[in-house]
């Protein structure tokens, strides 16, 4: 009980601990730095900067989709359609290319797909009142199935070979790959939306307590509907980037992508119950998972065995979050007790 009388701020170590515990993004940054440092020590190729630019290119579709899901999850709703969306968007884009010979129409059609699917999901959940996890699980199978039916399980190749389109994936601005620029712009927009606007505050409020939010005059349905549309749109942007990589619409694209994205979101500290989490943390979590995958590939660890490591890392990371949150809560309590003690309030 001696710690009760020592204000945490007096001790240098304690002070840093408090900063770490109270800042989620910072704690993830520490984790990311640790992972990178570890790989730099054991794998010499991980010391090259080109590896990291490459990594940023590869994680960008996941980052875009994960940010959309994070915003939606803040309000307490799920979207499992992102994996199927990756396939659908690719098919729609390349098919429109082939039918219209116009690149911009194809891209537009791809984005429109996300908008429409997001709106359908949103209508099911907010207008009819269906549960989002179940609804988007159904939509996930329905979309994937329609892709199978439409393509008859054969890839659709871009006959025009729009090299301009593939630049979306391969072009570099200096050392910076273009897809990560798209991703970071969207992360920044999402960050702004979540933290600096009324819409963002309403989203957090709904996730914290939907009934309280409704009673205090927030239009819960409209906010959730908008979030579904945003999530759909983000998924189609991820599909756009993914498709630019091969210039081909694959019917099997993004199988299991929804769980991969969800893993990153959860690693970023978002709560599945809603109300907790933030966009920056999700982006950092995507980087952490990406770095581990990249590092293991460079160490030529079998792709299949990487799953094992990623699973273990996920468990450790979630536990790390728990400890951090507990530390934050304890520090707050101790600071409160110390303040009360300083005032001579013994009962506290």
């Amino acid at each position, binding site marked *: 009980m001696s710690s009760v009388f020592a204000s945490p701020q007096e001790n240098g170590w304690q002070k840093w601990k408090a900063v770490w515990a109270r800042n989620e993004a910072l704690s993830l940054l520490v984790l990311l730095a640790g992972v990178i440092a570890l790989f730099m020590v054991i794998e010499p190729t991980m010391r090259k900067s080109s590896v990291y630019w490459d990594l940023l290119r590869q994680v960008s579709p996941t980052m875009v989709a994960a940010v959309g899901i994070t915003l939606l999850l803040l309000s307490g709703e799920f979207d499992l359609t992102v994996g199927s969306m990756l396939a659908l968007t690719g098919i729609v884009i390349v098919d429109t290319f082939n039918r219209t010979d116009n690149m911009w129409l194809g891209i537009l059609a791809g984005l429109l797909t996300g908008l429409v699917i997001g709106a359908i999901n949103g209508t099911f959940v907010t207008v009819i009142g*269906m549960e989002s996890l179940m609804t988007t699980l159904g939509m996930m199978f329905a979309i994937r199935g329609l892709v199978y039916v439409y393509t008859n399980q054969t890839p659709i190749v871009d006959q025009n070979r729009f090299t301009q389109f593939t630049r979306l994936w391969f072009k570099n601005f200096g050392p910076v790959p273009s897809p990560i620029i798209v991703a970071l712009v969207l992360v920044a927009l999402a960050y702004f939306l979540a933290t600096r606007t009324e819409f963002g505050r309403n989203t957090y409020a709904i996730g914290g307590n939907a009934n309280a939010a409704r009673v205090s005059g927030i239009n819960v349905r409209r906010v959730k509907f908008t979030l579904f549309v945003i999530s759909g749109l983000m998924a189609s942007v991820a599909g756009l980037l993914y498709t630019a990589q091969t210039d081909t619409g694959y019917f099997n694209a993004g199988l299991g992508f929804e769980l991969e994205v969800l893993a990153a979101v959860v690693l970023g500290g978002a709560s599945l119950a809603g109300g907790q989490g933030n966009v920056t943390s999700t982006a950092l979590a995507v980087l952490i998972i990406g770095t581990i995958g990249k590092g293991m590939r460079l160490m030529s660890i079998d792709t299949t065995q990487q799953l094992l490591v990623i699973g273990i890392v996920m468990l450790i990371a979630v536990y790390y979050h728990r400890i951090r949150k507990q530390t934050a809560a304890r520090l707050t309590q101790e600071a409160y007790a110390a303040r009360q003690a300083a005032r001579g309030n013994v009962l506290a």
Partner: protein
Amino acid sequence: MSAEISTPARSVGASGQSSLQDFLRRLFGSQEGVLFLIVAVLWLYLMSRSDVFFTQRNIGVMLSQVSMIAITGFGMTMLMIAREVDLSVGSMQAFAGVTAMQALNESHSLIVGLLAALAVGAIVGAINAGATLGLKISSFIVTLAMMQIVRGLAYTSTNAAVQNEHKLASFKKVFNGAFIENPVRIPNPVLTMVIIFIIFGLILSRTTFGRSIYAIGGNPEAAALSGIPVNRIKAICFIITGMLAALSAFMLIARMNSGQNNAGFGFELQVIGSVLLGGASLAGGKGTLVGTLLAAVLLGTVNNGIVLLGYNSNWQTAVVGLMILTAVFLDTMRRRMTGQS
């Protein structure tokens, strides 16, 4: 949440009415009833459209395929009633199967192979329980991680598949044989499914243990305060789910005649889809084995019907999705009309 406020027992209002009305009310008033109706209509339709559908052979094959999802689904139902979930059952199809086939090849004994599968299931279930309940991390996340870990273990233990090197005659009969031939031939997987359905159905509805599961899912704090050993019961549910998933895996390797390390990809979502379709909820406290069974049969019938009626089999995935959407839609409308929230 207002969802906690339940309507008074419906049978009270129905007491004065005729038994037909009462029957109809029950049929439309529950997820199981609606599912039963859909399955019945679908079966009648398929019988009228195809001569092959209602034959002993076709129904047997269809239900054999359903049995793997249903058996895993029974465990998952108990777990989801207790407000937990297990996403690792798909990877389990691979890992338990691969391990069992290796054990079969080493031992040339069916029992040892089966025990190896069940042991893998129990261990993975225990790890899921330990991480969820001990470290207090959401089971969704724990089992999402375990899904990767178990899949990784399956990949590590074999490059592609473990072939059948033991050539046990009894092994093939696990999936293709029938212990009961008369008066109707009941394939072994279907028999297993029925036995497990009865055992766990009785446990869930007739024992303190079963009632405790519902109590925990309905309100964990209240259950704990009233002396129910919450963690122990949840742990048992995790282990049961793991073992039933492993049993499905054993039937799968008998069907494939090899233990494949990429088996069961996406299986977890099919199982969870069936359980949710059967009336369970992620929020816990709800769900029955009958519902899960009917949902699994429904999805199996749809797949079977698509093939029998000569439609493009690419429609199967889409129709599964549309069935889930329809069921959720009907359930939502039903609850709106009966005033449940």
